């Protein structure tokens, strides 16, 4: 199966959906990586969440990587099992804000503390797309959705600040319509040795169309909410990264990157050096009567 051609697959994104841009960026990043590393595309695995965004794994065009489309909220544990046992693979997670930050939220901190070497691409539309428009953790307080007809009664969740507070070793923020920039961020995340998250604003044209707010409209005098991070920013400086997140609305670019923390794979290799090589006969022998 080189190229994909599947008449039975029956999901399509709505016209204008931000996920189209993310798809192009991801395809380009994977392609770049396979070219630079001269590794086959078969070394790539895309692990998808459940949501409109997760359908990415079926929609990728061109030569196909491996894919995993499992349960709502469980991309990270699957990635953890796969990458820790197969460090040779390039493991990419794609998921939505609901999948990653609501039902799947428990899985983020553990990977941060282990520095699992996978690259996560979040398509944040601040809404549950696939279930037709309920509020998500990143929806703002007061937002009207089908599940919050009188306005959302929770504070909005700030994912970038959260990632930084967990010490995740690569944190970037992107916008789905800036495909080239985004592709670069994803590529950087993939080659970063450790846990990397590229959090993408990917508007849902059907239930929460934020294009205008994000990109701004000179015509209507609307300032863009999403703006590139100042070039002077030093991504190795966590404090500075936190300040940017605090003060700017939606900063675009690499917020933070640390290469000092060992990856989970490296940590486990250290253990194997400390333990003796085992074999079944000697193990059995230790139970001899």
């Amino acid at each position: 199966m080189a190229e994909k051609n599947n008449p039975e697959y029956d999901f399509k994104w709505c016209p204008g959906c931000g996920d189209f841009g993310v798809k192009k960026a991801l395809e380009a990043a994977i392609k770049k990586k396979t070219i630079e590393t001269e590794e086959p595309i078969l070394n790539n695995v895309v692990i998808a969440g459940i949501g409109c965004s997760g359908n990415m794994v079926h929609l990728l065009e061109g030569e196909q990587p491996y894919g995993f489309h499992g349960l709502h909220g469980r991309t990270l544990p699957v990635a953890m099992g796969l990458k820790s046992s197969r460090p040779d693979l390039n493991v990419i997670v794609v998921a939505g804000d609901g999948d990653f930050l609501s039902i799947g939220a428990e899985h983020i901190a553990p990977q941060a503390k282990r520095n699992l070497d996978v690259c996560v691409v979040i398509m944040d539309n601040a809404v549950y797309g696939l279930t037709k428009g309920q509020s998500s953790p990143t929806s703002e307080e007061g937002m009207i959705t089908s599940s919050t007809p009188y306005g959302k009664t929770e504070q909005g969740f700030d994912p970038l600040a959260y990632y930084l507070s967990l010490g995740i070793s690569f944190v970037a923020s992107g916008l789905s319509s800036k495909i080239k920039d985004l592709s670069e961020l994803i590529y950087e995340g993939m080659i970063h040795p450790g846990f990397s998250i590229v959090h993408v604003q990917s508007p849902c044209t059907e239930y929460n169309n934020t294009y205008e707010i994000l990109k701004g409209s000179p015509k209507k005098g609307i300032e863009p909410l999403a703006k590139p991070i100042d070039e002077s920013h030093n991504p190795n400086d966590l404090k500075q990264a936190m300040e940017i997140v605090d003060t700017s609305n939606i900063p675009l670019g690499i917020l933070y990157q640390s290469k000092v923390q060992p990856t989970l794979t490296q940590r486990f290799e250290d253990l194997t050096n400390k333990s003796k090589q085992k074999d079944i006969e000697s193990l059995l022998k230790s139970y001899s009567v």
Partner: protein
Amino acid sequence: MKNTDFVVRFAGEGGQGFLSAAIGFASANTKAGYHAQTFATFPSQITGGPTWMQTRISIDPVLSRGDEVDVLVVFNEYAYETHKNEVKENGFILYDSDQLNIEPSEKVLGIAFEKLAKTTGNARAANMVMMGALAELVGVNLSVLEDFVKERWGDTSRYGEQIVPQNIAALKLGSNEVQDRGFKLAEIEPAKPLNTSQIFLNGNEAISLGAYSAGVEFYVGYPISPATTILIWMEKNLVEKNKFVHQVSSEIEAITAIIGASYGGKKSMTATAGPGFSLMSEGLGLAWMAEIPIVVVDVQRGGPATGLPTKTEQSDLLSSITPAHGDVSLPVVAPGTVEECFYATIEAFNWAEKYQGPVILLSEHGLAERQQNIPKPDINSLKIENRIINQSTDNYYRYESQGISPMPIPGSPGPYVANASEHDKMGDTTHLPERHIEMTERRFKKLEILKDSKYEYINSKSEIILMPWGGSKGPGFEAFEKLQEKNIDIGWAYTMFLNPLPEKLLIELQSKKLVIVPELNYLGQFSSLLRSQGVNAKSITQYTGLPFKVQYLVDQITELSSKR
């Protein structure tokens, strides 16, 4: 007359150190060629609390913990009061007169273990005094314990010169004390020669060794009684190149992580108990749907919900077969003995890799916490199944055939999407009715290849069959032997393979008047499963948190079979 079998129960307060003595006593006897089994029940608190352990020694393989106690060794008042009535009529009570005082009688014997030990120059040899006394009481040759002492502490560079002679002196002191006062059960018959070397271990260790033998490469888990020791074993022993072990943050992470690893081509396992198992429901459905081989060990404990973490029960059977929504029927293998814990684990891996899906290994607290001697497995004679891996490079579709199809492994040819949604041959989501029919049938058809498993079948002509499962096998078989001695016409059927059942056995059972199922649960879960498959089955249930006693089974079976 000589004895062939006896039971010693040790009871006191957790932390008093007699548990290791009880295990040591069992272990020493196995070294001399006897068979031994320990049985323990622990309080839920961490240190202290009433604890007891029981050791049964026999010249034949030990099938159950033993209904009655030949010798009770007690270390405090509470233990004495709680256990005294379980001692056989012609049994003895040995008590630590350093700790408590009991009205002496011809049945009751007090020895000051520690005081006597001090005279050897080593107060910590109190346990040895106790063991020496015990040996004399039950008629075990003291040399059995002496040999044990020499082996255990013989390394003088590590333990010094003194320990062995001190301990041997202590053994003698205890033994003499009993001899002097004229207490004695009966001599035990000499051990029968064994033609295989033995190992002495508990069920969780057997499972761990089984998994290692089967080639487990990936293990993650979350602590939970009584499965924790499997995690601990793996953390110690699975730390090797190309393997991976880790304590993860929850059972939900565990189940989905092993699925990820197996998708990557690794033999993967996790172990848990009831509450953790329930949390794995959704993940188990995923493995079934995407056809990913994994082994999930459920070491059953008592009760629903948080239940009875330190008690035994066999009440997870129904939920382990259909743990999740939708049409699923998970293969379940349930070992009945410590030895079977080893082989069942290998079979579980073999099943998982063969049919490409999740397999539940259903063990029990009663097996996990039991120490026992078993023949050392012959590693070379094991049959290990490995996954059939796709080699084909062109247009291979993972889910095309109706039947077992080679699995592509990431990095190699044949990319596909492992999909929890209904899918087409390449794993992409589809909602077409014909695809749902095709894939559902594909998933169930794979179970067919698991139906030729082994089973035991004795007295197969009898119209009434006794068929326990899991850890009730031991007391069940002992009861069966007793019934046969009484010339009661009854057959015996047993298998570790509970779902799917061996086809031939099922057909046999369907033709019987009655199948009697002793099982440790309220619902009668296995008999209900049998009835749903056309077998006229009836359970003998018990839900006390403890294993069956043999005599109880004999009585119940006699009653049930005579009613017919």
